[in-house]
Structures are given as C-alpha cells and as structure tokens.
C-alpha cells in the first residue's frame, strides 16, 4: 500500500474546523496530549505498517527551524 497524498477527504473545511475547535480552551500541554492521542488513534485506524512509515517520512520532511 502506498500513502495517499492526493485529496481524499470529504468536507475538508468541516474537518479542519473540528480539529481546531477540539483544542479550544486547552493549555499547551493538554493540546500536545490531544494531538498525540489523535495520532495514535488514526494510526490504529490506518493499520498498515508501511503506510505509517511513509507518513512519518513525509511529516518529517519539513519541520522547520528548531
């Protein structure tokens, strides 16, 4: 399986709003925990080890300055 890098989501705007709203009122530490938990939940949903590996590579491509 290969990682999907073309648009694959319905209602992208709605998802993005939910994602941002989920962090409303949280401290930095809480937000980081939310993001970590979400990544783990989505990873389980994806399941395929090779896809997850490719996703990690793409995510790490550009994380900017320290």
């Amino acid at each position, binding site marked *: 399986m290969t990682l*999907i*890098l*073309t*648009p*694959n*989501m319905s209602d*992208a*705007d709605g998802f*993005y*709003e939910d*994602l*941002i709203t989920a*962090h*409303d009122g*949280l401290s*930095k530490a809480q*937000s980081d925990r939310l*993001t970590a938990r979400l990544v783990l939940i989505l990873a389980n949903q994806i399941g395929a080890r090779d896809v997850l590996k490719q996703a990690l590579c*793409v995510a790490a*491509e*550009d994380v*900017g300055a320290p």
Partner: protein
Amino acid sequence: MNAPLVDRYPLAFRLYPYARSGDQDAPTATRHPVVIVGGGPVGLSAALDLGLRGQPVVVLDDHEGVGQGSRAICFAKRTLEIAHRLGAGAPMLDKGVVWQKGRVFHDRDEVFSFDLLPEAGHRCPAFINLQQPHFERFLVEAIARANAAGAQIDIRGKNRVDGLTVHDDHVALNVMTPDGPYDLTADWLIACDGARSPLRDKMGLGFDGRVFEDNFLIADVKMKASFPTERWFWFEPWFKSGSSALLHKQPDDIWRIDFQLGWDIDRAHEMKPENVRARVDAMLGTDIEYELEWCSIYTFQCRRMDKFRHGRVLFAGDSAHQVSPFGARGANSGVQDADNLGWKLDLVLRGQASDTLLDSYCAERVAAADENILNSTRATDFLTPKTEVSKTFRDAVLSLAAKHAFARPLINSGRLSVPAVYDGQALNGPDALPGGPARTRPGAPCPDAPLGSGYLLDQLTQGFTVLAINCTAPETGLHNLTITAKDALGAISDRYLGTASCAVYLIRPDQHVVARWATADAAQIKAALIHVTGVSQ
C-alpha cells in the same frame, strides 16, 4: 432625535438629490404599501424587484447618492443573474472585470489554485469585479428606466429615519429632511439600513456574533499593470507587507490590495500615505508607478439577528447579517435576500398569499446567512489563527501543501459566494424525479443553460414557471416553458434530467426549484403551488 442632517460619508455619485415630497405637506401621515429604508445595494435591489412587479415603493436614504470609498468589489454569478432579471445586469457585465480563477501563495510558492466556473453554458461569469458605487449606480439607473416604463419607485435622498413605531398592521416612521421632519406610515417596512442599522437598535433587537481580532489595510491603487485578472492571495508573503496579502483587478486600472496587519496597531500611523506606500512598494517593487486612490483599515465581524422578520418589519442585507469579506458574501447574500423577499411580499400585498409566506423569507435567509457566516468564519480563522496550536496546524497545512496535493483543499483564503440551496425548507414540494441531478433538487437555484439563441434563465418569468422537458406541461394557468428533445441535448439535459428521460419542474419567481416530477398533472402542480402560497387560487 431630529438632529440636523450631516453626511456621514462623501458621495461618489449624487444620484437622488433631495426634493420635497408632497407627503411633507400632507395634513396627516401618508400611508404607503412598502417603505424601504436604505439605498445600498440591498435596498435598491428590493425596490427594483417590487417596483417591476407593479408595487409602488418609497426608498428613504439619509444621503443623496452612493458613498465614495470602495467596499465590495466581487459580485458573484447569482447576483449578476438577479441583476439581469431586474434589467441592471448588462452594464455591470460591460464594465466589470470578469474573473474565475484564483491562486494562493505561501511566501514565494504557489500552493493552491481554483477555478470557480469550470463549465460553459452560463450567461453570467463566475464573478466580476466592480466597485460598489458603480454597482449601486447601475441599480439606480435601472430604477430610472423602470420608472420611465411605468414603475413607481420613489427614492428620497436626505430622508433620514429617526424613529419608528411598529403596530400590528402598519409601521409609523419619523423622517428628517433638510426642510425639517415629517411622518409616514407603511403597511410593510424593509430595513436595509446597513450593519449599524439604526432601525434594529431603535427596535431594541440584538445583533450577536464574533469580532475577529485583526486589522486589514485595504488600498485601491491606480496603475497600469499586466498581472492576470485572477485573485492572488499570499500567506506570509515574501515581501512582508502583512501577514497575508491580496491583489485583485478592478475596472479603470484600479487594483484592490489588502494587507493583514494584526491586532495591536496604531491606526493613524498605518494610514499615513508614506506608510501605506512602503507596504505597496515592497509588494509591487519600486519600478511600478501607481497612485493611491483610496485606503482604509477594517476590523471584521460575523453576526446575525435571531429573526429577519418582526411582524411588519423585514430586515435584509447587512442590517440582518454581517460577514467578513473573505468570500465576498456580504452584498452578494444581501441581494439574494432581496430576491427571496420581493415576490413573497408582492403576493402578500396582492392577497394571493398568506402573510405566513414571509416567515419562509426569515427561515430561508437565516439558513443562508448561517452558511455564509460559517464559511466566512472558517476563512477568517484560517487567516487569523487565534491560538498557538491553530497557528501550528495552519503552518503545517501550508508547508505540506507546497509539495503534497492532499493538503491544498485545507487552505482557506475565502470560499467564494455561491447561492444557498434551501434544503429542507417548508416551501419545498416533492422531489419525484428519479435520476434527477442533485444540483436541481427542490430548494436549489436553477442553473443557467444555453437555450435556443439565448439562455434558460431568461425564459423564466417574474411569476412561477412550469418547465417541461421532453413532455408537455399541463394547463395550470401558470407560465409554461416546454423544451423538446432536440433542445434538451447537452447542458439542459445534464443539469435538469440527469438519467431521467423527461421532467416537469415547478420554479419559483426567484428561480429556485419548488418541486420536480418525472411527469405531473395539473392537480399535482397546483397542490405544490398552494403549499407555497398557503392560499388556493
């Protein structure tokens, strides 16, 4: 109350100079069927619509014409179709700059592009850019033409409404003029008096929503430039004139430039011409010559009234709802309010519909306002992330989008105005056309399509239309439009038949679909019509 009349803004066009009206000398307040307060794009559209339907209309505006200072520039296809129906569309299309494509940049890289009308076969383009004063001038000129042909639309300049009393069956108004005050009464009042609506305040009605903590510097510059007529938008632009920037062409070699400045700014300092110029120079380069035509700093809000109908008073346009301009949903949605209201109020005034039809104005346009507020709020939140985490996600989207297509639909610099579909609304009738396209379901605005040597929308009348495709429309006394197999090839078939072989549509006077069937008899059509008007004809 009754303070002297002082202009709150300079005029671009003095179109309706104050002229004393007979009502000012009447011993008792004259009663009019419809009074509209506010001669902005929405009040003028409503006046023209009702006037063309034969209703005498009085429009009261506290100025003598259209204000200077460019606000709206982007007018959408649906607005142009409405203007066309009202006889004001052609000059708008002539003068406006037609566009349909947009590009979004992050720093120097293009990260996203869009095409708002990828299909052919529509009279009107996806968008034109036209300065709001011209848009309003063309409406006033169409009103003059309508009046010459018998309409009775009376625009009264320098007539400021200072007070109103709402009764069960009429509204009483106190109006201030250069000759002093006078009183008027109206069976129905349409409040199109803008976002600061004095009428809304006088009625003690709320206007709640969100203020966005950001300032936008808007500069219109005059220059000869060869940039394409596309909407160009930058997040974190390399030229650093703002945290975002916009460049968009208008008629007469004017370009709209827009910089996002942030929340804590010194307005007076930022408005100094040399400081505005420094930002523009950084964007355009120092070798381009330009004049600063006009500039202003705005903060934006998204809010609406709870209800747009309060007995005999109907709110339309910015007085009822306000959005941030990212998406051009302000004037465009206000003109659709007028489009929705005109035929309903006309039928009520004629006694051909029960006044509960006006509650559907409120329900349908509140739903549309919520859609517009949702879209413009999302865009503004993307532009101005309000927390550190949302900024982190925003920046992640932008950095991924440069390389990976999947992130591009998440980029939001404004989702541009499209008409609302009145899904689930009380006026909708049956959707009994198996295989019919979703875009023409009950509640949807009719998409245009070529027909004969013209266009489909031109064949819809000011009243209800029964559109029959590949079959004969039953006799109902309504206007019938029959399209046969050979004309129904192509666009009409794609947009109205889908996989069906024939169809009957009942279409409202504002060109939204009431109901559709594979075949329908007169009784079915009449039932759907009675369901709309609440009255058996």
